């Protein structure tokens, strides 16, 4: 998985609680992404980062926030988890934007009860 780790790999939480997912890379790639994967929707971009402290929203950003204080770490926070945020979350990295391969991490399976 191209030097990308995600933690935790599995999490069960309750509605209304905050949740933070971590993505860590050892490739020194500039761009980092958070996607969610749901049946029938493929992968949808939540947020991305184009450098330390530089982030922007993706297609489905409502209810999520991100932070990147170091090149290697990109955090995704669900401020108040809802059942609709039950999903598999993937982190991805790339050297360039748009026309460069994105390398995906192993995913985090999140269940919100």
């Amino acid at each position, binding site marked *: 998985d191209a030097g990308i780790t995600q933690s935790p790999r599995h999490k069960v939480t309750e509605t209304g609680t905050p949740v933070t997912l971590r993505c860590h890379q050892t490739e020194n790639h500039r761009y980092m992404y958070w996607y969610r994967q749901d049946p029938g929707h*493929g992968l949808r971009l939540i947020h991305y980062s184009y450098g330390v402290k530089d982030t922007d929203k993706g297609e489905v950003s409502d209810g999520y926030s991100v932070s990147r204080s170091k090149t290697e770490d990109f955090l995704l926070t669900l401020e108040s988890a809802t059942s609709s945020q039950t999903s598999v979350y993937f982190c991805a990295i790339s050297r360039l934007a*748009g*026309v460069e391969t994105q390398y995906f991490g192993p*995913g985090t399976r999140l269940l919100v009860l």
Partner: protein
Amino acid sequence: QQQVKQSPQSLIVQKGGISIINCAYENTAFDYFPWYQQFPGKGPALLIAIRPDVSEKKEGRFTISFNKSAKQFSLHIMDSQPGDSATYFCAASILNNNDMRFGAGTRLTVKP
């Protein structure tokens, strides 16, 4: 609104057969079209990609066919093997843009 539409949702092919997955896109600004392969419990991995300046790209048993005027592209897997059983995603993006759009995925099963 899904900008990349993928079909079929699932596909069953006999070993040695040809698997064909189709995608159609709406945004004519897209200029990078990758295909990703995903095995259960794993993240997607790039399989093959094409730019719109060519109509076909082949890598081993995998071929992308691209029709710019029809805004369609497809993945052909020749001599399909049971090890090819996975979910395949097409995607599209724009140069210098971080918003890659994915199709909904096709679950391929190759029967021995």
